[in-house]
């Protein structure tokens, strides 16, 4: 099977940045315990969790330390055993101070009900509601990056019906290999997780979408999928941003999720491969979401690796384990090259949605000077949502928010394909983000008038 031959993908736009998958052959290593962890209380989309421990308390691995409140929120558990030394506001990934719990590590003492053995537990004994409750209790959020509380996605609106589950193993971002390694090393566990999700959603069909630059994972999962009825593996043509929910759904089902609608409106639910694995651990082993695989990579890094990391470990600790911060570092990114956030400090903690830490050299960091738009229309061609980035940028610059809304600025995924392709180095996405913020503000105000 040669690459990209006769494989399906989504139709509109897209780019193909250099892949740089430096760590796709590096098995996952378990990172040693840090001295302390900083666990942020808002690692998910929605309301921040409320602490249920106080300063001085001793906690075990897997113990609930903050409770999600309201519908869209998630529980947070201690990822280590030790003593709570601080409950305070500390800088999160963006540099703003947010509530967090700091725990000093003492030993590695797990909650008794967590099964620590690595045996595969394949039998599903719990009912639909029991599984859902366990997923909610365990604080599982979407591990692809958005960190939307998973149990919320599993409770369908009354009038909606899901026909199929889609599992996102696309990993279209350059450098990142955490999902790739997970599929290779924990494939069967993930499959059990998928069966659990299928039971909750009451669907008979699951499609796993994987880009074909991970042919080994495609073969491996196809092999084991035969033991799991209803699950099928689909290799996809390599194209960014295929990992975006709407694009993946189109690639696999040929259905387009309409503007401002949800996947369930076209009859599907999408979860990430890592989320499926977390569901397996939560339901079959009673283990809440306390660690995850993080790819630490970069061309100048000595030992790019995939690590299993406890939530709350500092980014500095991860980079040290990968050979230390190179002298010429210009930028450190949480997430992928295309959509990740640049960090302003290495002392921020790992959060549930962090799939990678990338270290870029100073040369790779610099932006080139902005030139005049030559109207080459490449931004329009690559936009996967069928928008016109050049127009959205100039409308934002001119403050024409009424027209921005009409030109569907809110549909922008912020995938960055337009800024990537622009030959005049125009900061298209920077301006589009500003435009989105302003349009959202106007829409909110309109509701209150």
């Amino acid at each position, binding site marked *: 099977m040669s690459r990209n031959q006769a494989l399906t993908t989504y139709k*509109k736009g897209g*780019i193909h*940045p*250099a892949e740089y998958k430096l760590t796709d052959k590096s098995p996952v290593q378990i990172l040693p315990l840090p001295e302390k962890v900083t666990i942020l209380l808002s690692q998910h989309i929605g309301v921040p969790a409320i602490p249920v421990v106080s300063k001085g308390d001793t906690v075990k691995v897997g113990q609930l330390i903050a409770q999600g409140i309201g519908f869209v929120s998630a529980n947070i558990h201690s990822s280590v055993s030790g003593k709570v030394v601080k409950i305070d506001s500390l800088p999160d990934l963006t540099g703003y101070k947010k509530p967090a719990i700091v725990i000093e590590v003492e030993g590695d003492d797990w909650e008794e009900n967590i099964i620590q053995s690595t045996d595969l537990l394949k039998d599903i004994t719990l009912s639909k509601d029991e599984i859902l409750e366990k997923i909610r209790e365990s604080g599982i959020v979407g591990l692809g990056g958005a960190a939307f509380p998973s149990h919320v996605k599993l409770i369908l609106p009354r009038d909606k019906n899901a026909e199929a589950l889609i599992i996102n193993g696309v990993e279209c971002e350059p450098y990142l290999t955490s999902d790739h390694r997970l599929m290779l090393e924990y494939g069967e566990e993930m499959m059990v997780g998928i069966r659990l999700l299928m039971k909750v959603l009451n669907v008979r069909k699951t499609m796993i979408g994987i880009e074909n630059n991970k042919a080994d994972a495609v073969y491996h999962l196809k092999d084991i999928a035969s033991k799991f009825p209803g699950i099928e593996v689909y290799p996809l043509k390599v194209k960014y941003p295929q990992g975006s929910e*709407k694009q993946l759904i*189109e690639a696999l*089902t*040929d259905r*387009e*999720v*309409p*503007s401002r*609608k949800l996947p369930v409106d*076209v009859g599907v639910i999408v979860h990430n491969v890592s989320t499926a694995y977390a569901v397996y651990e939560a339901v079959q082993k009673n283990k809440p979401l306390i660690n995850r695989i993080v790819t630490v990579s970069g061309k100048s890094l000595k030992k790019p690796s995939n690590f299993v990391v406890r939530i709350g470990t500092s980014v500095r600790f991860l980079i040290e384990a990968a050979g230390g911060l190179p002298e010429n*570092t*210009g*930028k450190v*990114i949480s*997430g992928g*090259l*295309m*959509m*990740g*956030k*640049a*960090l*302003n*400090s*290495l002392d921020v903690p790992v959060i549930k949605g962090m799939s990678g830490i990338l270290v870029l050299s100073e040369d*790779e*960091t610099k*932006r*080139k000077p902005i030139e*005049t*738009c*030559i*109207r*080459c*229309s490449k931004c*329009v*061609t690559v936009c*996967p*949502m*069928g*928008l*016109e980035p050049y*127009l959205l940028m100039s409308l934002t610059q001119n403050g024409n928010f009424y027209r921005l809304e009409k030109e*569907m600025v809110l*549909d922008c995924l*912020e995938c*960055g394909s337009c*800024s*990537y*392709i*622009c*030959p*005049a180095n125009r900061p298209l*996405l*920077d301006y589009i*983000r500003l435009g989105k913020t302003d349009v959202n503000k106007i829409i909110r105000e309109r509701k209150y008038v």
Partner: protein
Amino acid sequence: MSKLLTVSPSPHIYGKDTTPNLMYGVIIALIPAILASILYFGWGAVIVISVAVISSVLFEFLIQRFLLQKKTTIQDGSAIITGLLLSLCLPSNFPVWLIILGSLFAIGVGKLSFGGLGNNPFNPALVGRVFLFISFPAKMTSWPEAQGFQTQYIDASTGATPLNIIKEGLGKGDSISHLMDKIPTYQQLFFGNMGGSIGEVAAVALILGLAYLLLRKIITWHIPVSIILTVVIFTGILWLVNPAHNADPLFHILSGGILLGAIFMATDYVTSPMTTKGMILYGICIGILTVVIRRFGSYPEGVQFAILIMNGFVPLINYYIKPKRFGEEVKNG
């Protein structure tokens, strides 16, 4: 204190395309046409091309440096393209001072008066070409014949272009079958053995350029293909309805400036639409206008006017023709 890190919004990686390397890509695509023009017209072509390119670049530099007093942009290659395209639609015996005047008009009025690259509504090379055509019609309609490599310049033997022969012949009441005997064969038309501007004659060289532009993804197929198809269909209908008074589609495509215009002029980034749907509409309109001017207008050739007219409609096309948004129509598997 630890090292300071750069913080900037995503994306953190950029593609390799830059304005200059897209422009130089277009110049590379023009090389076959330049070589063909030298092969057919000799020193005349060399003089016309070099004068046009040098004066275009020089005027861009002088105007930006001394008149506008801002950063010069000659290194982006766009002035070279303007010079090349202007020269390729001139006759090989064109007086040097007129070439310089044409370049000044193209760069000064066509491009820089609107704010330079990216802001000009009309294709600068065509602005220069039409300026010369309207101001000096006699000089612009005496076309040296392609007779292999020549060394003479001003006194090259001239004759009518195939389009001229057809236009005048039809005007006098001759029938097409009779006129077709007077014009070169299709094979000659394809390889460029005919009278005409230095760049438009060799269809094969222009098609090679098109292949390069498409392969390097500098342009998409939408504009050239829609222009050429429209011309083929429109002239095909006329030909089928009345073969005695209309030349066939193949003759129309291979003669005159349609290929040069469709491949290199209508596809100019700055003056063409931004969406694929818009590009197709623009191409169809150019095709129709070209045939209307050729067949019913008073000029034998119409493609440059057709492109300039449609350049004027591009803002309107961009305003009304939107790409198909993702999820616009609900598909049902």
